[in-house]
């Protein structure tokens, strides 16, 4: 009996072991098959790019147009530029660039379509001291005849106002712009609506409602002045105007006569002014300002590469309001201020071959009538400037310009100082292709 039991036990155990072994074998075989399949797949996954999932959300296809335009110059003057130069009646400051080498700006342009309805343009100006958003605006693409422009942009007032510096034919802004608006010109936050007439002749009309940040002619902050120069009097607050403060309107037309193209138009800008230079220049102004502009550009295309162009703008500024100053005793005086100032620039540029251009610009103030309490201040009118430039454009993307100028509109104390200005300017553009200028 015991022998039978033991044998049975042994057989059973053996059988179970055998079963287990068989199970294990089949399982192992399956496992090996699986592993073999896995290894195939894993090798493929490692080396087959289609199965990889890198860069699934990469959106480089939507990169916008990007370009960078950099401007360097070497400037020289017959005087030390730190002298206090100004133009009577205009309160401009630091009219000259630094002597020696200047990095004038590095302009980053980014633009692209936002969607079927809008395009976005972004221009940021980098210089050594700060970064500025020069323009950041969207324009509509889907309105017929009309266009809406919203954001921060260079106003379409006049001809050169909306053009970026690298498009200018000269290394310096025209004198009237410098005096009426500073070289930043009318660069405002707001909205523009323009309408292009459906005529065969180009007629563009538009209006802009803008914040009015340009302090040279407008400005929208409140002014707080103490009745005493030494600050011991009471503070007078001149309230800021309602904002948006600046309204601009323009109408322009263009037509061709053979190879001659003409663009001409009128613009005007009106708004309140708040100008506070009471500490620096003993002058503050609060009132209303109107700017009127006439522009004319005529370009004669001799052939594919050569042209002669004539461009002129006339600006008139009238201001009415109160001016403030401290008298000899340090007391604040409020005056009735009434001014009518005007001037123009005219330039001829001759592109005599594909790479070379020569240009001459004449600037003049034609009226500098400032009345304080009805009394004409007899401010100087013989204010002008001449510039002669020669530029070499190796390609559309690079430019070397030499410019010589006489500035006869700057005073040191009561004496007019004739400034001789020499500029060697370099301009380079990389990235997306810019538009050819008209």
């Amino acid at each position: 009996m015991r022998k039978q039991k033991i044998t049975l036990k042994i057989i059973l155990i053996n059988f179970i072991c055998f079963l287990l072994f068989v199970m294990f074998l089949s399982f192992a075989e399956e496992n090996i098959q699986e592993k073999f399949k896995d290894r195939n797949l894993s090798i493929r996954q490692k080396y087959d790019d289609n199965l990889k999932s890198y860069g699934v959300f990469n959106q480089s296809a939507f990169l916008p147009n990007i370009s960078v335009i950099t401007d360097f110059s070497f400037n020289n003057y017959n005087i030390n530029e730190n002298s206090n130069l100004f133009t009577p009646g205009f309160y401009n400051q630091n009219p000259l660039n630094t002597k020696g080498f200047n990095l004038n700006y590095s302009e980053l342009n980014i633009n692209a379509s936002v969607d079927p309805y809008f395009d976005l343009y972004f221009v940021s100006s980098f210089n050594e001291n700060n970064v500025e958003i020069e323009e950041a605006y969207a324009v509509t693409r889907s309105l017929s005849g009309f266009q809406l422009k919203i954001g921060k942009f260079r106003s379409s007032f006049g001809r050169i106002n909306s053009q970026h510096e690298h498009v200018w034919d000269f290394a310096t802004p025209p004198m009237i712009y410098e005096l009426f608006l500073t070289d930043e010109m009318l660069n405002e936050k707001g909205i523009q609506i323009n309408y292009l007439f459906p005529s065969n002749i180009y007629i563009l009309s538009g209006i802009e409602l803008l914040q009015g940040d340009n302090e040279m002619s407008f400005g929208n902050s409140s002014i707080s002045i103490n009745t005493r120069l030494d600050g011991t009097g009471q503070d007078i607050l001149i309230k800021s105007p309602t904002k948006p403060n600046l309204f601009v309107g323009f109408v322009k037309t263009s037509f061709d006569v053979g190879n001659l193209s003409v663009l001409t138009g009128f613009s005007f800008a009106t708004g309140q002014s708040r100008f506070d230079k009471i500490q620096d220049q003993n002058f503050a102004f609060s009132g209303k300002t109107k700017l009127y502009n006439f522009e004319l550009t005529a370009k004669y295309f001799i052939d594919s590469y050569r042209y002669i162009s004539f461009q002129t703008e006339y600006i008139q500024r009238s201001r009415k309001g109160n001016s403030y100053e401290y008298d000899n005793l340090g007391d604040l005086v409020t005056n009735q201020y009434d001014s009518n100032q005007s001037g123009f620039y005219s330039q001829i540029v001759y592109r005599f071959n594909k790479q070379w251009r020569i240009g001459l610009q004449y600037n003049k103030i034609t009226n500098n009538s400032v009345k304080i309490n009805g009394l004409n201040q007899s401010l100087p009118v013989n204010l002008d400037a001449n510039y002669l430039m020669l530029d070499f454009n190796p390609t559309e993307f690079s430019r070397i310009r030499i410019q010589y100028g006489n500035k006869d509109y700057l005073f040191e104390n009561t004496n007019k100082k004739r400034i001789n200005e020499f500029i060697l300017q370099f301009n380079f553009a990389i990235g997306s292709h810019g538009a050819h200028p008209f």
Partner: protein
Amino acid sequence: MKLYRSILIFIFIIFSITFAKVKVVVSYPWIGYLVNEIGKDKVDVFILGKGTEDPHFIVPKPSYIAKLRNADLLIIQGASLEIGFIPALISQANNPKIQPGNNGFLDLSKTVDLIEKPEKVSRAMGDVHPDGNPHYNLDPNNIPILANAIEMKLSQVDNSNSSFYKSNLQIFLSKWNEKLKYWNEEFGKLRGSKVIEYHKKYDYLFTRYGIEIVETIEPLPGIPPTAKYIQEIISNSKSLNVKYVIVDVYNDKKAAQYVAQSIGAKFVVLPQDIGALPNVNDLFQLFDTILNLLTK
């Protein structure tokens, strides 16, 4: 008051009469010619560039903006040829129809195969076109493809006259294909000839017919030659038996004439579009004139 009203109505009628035609603005004369052949009196075509002008440097005049304002269709050659002026014009035209991506916009460069597409681009290479050589219109074998694309677009924009456009296309194609046999034979006789061109303008023509371009007068696209480079060209190609030195009507001719003289080649000014030379008033005359000038 009655006079006012009738004048107003008269003006509206005038406007509506002109509205009845499909207003097409095109960048270059050869495109304008094809549109007129297919559209005939149902289209009103305005051509921005002239045959005598360098196509890369058309100026975006404000008067062009007015033409685009009223256009139903804008057709461009593409491949960055118009990159310097068309974008500026259409962004100011206030016309949604002709914006890229909409029905009223056609980029012909997308309808043909472009050659000489650079692998990498940099402006150090000169004024290169990243999509390839844009002057595909100078191979007469491409013209039927382009004419087809124009007919398709016209039919899309003006469906009611689709059969009219299609029949005009067939008439044009039968004339063209007849001439094409003649051109293929005659241009084919120039196979193996060597030429120097000022700019890489006729590459499609030369590639098609086996004409070898040994040099360009421009060291790089858009870069004018220096005296030193001219000497290099002369010494490199003196012994090559170059048949022609080819310039466009708007190129500076002196450098090319000097090279031709120095290497014993014939200096020839080829028309690159309709209107470039007198008696080049349509595409047939364009290729006939090119053939004549290259077989003298």
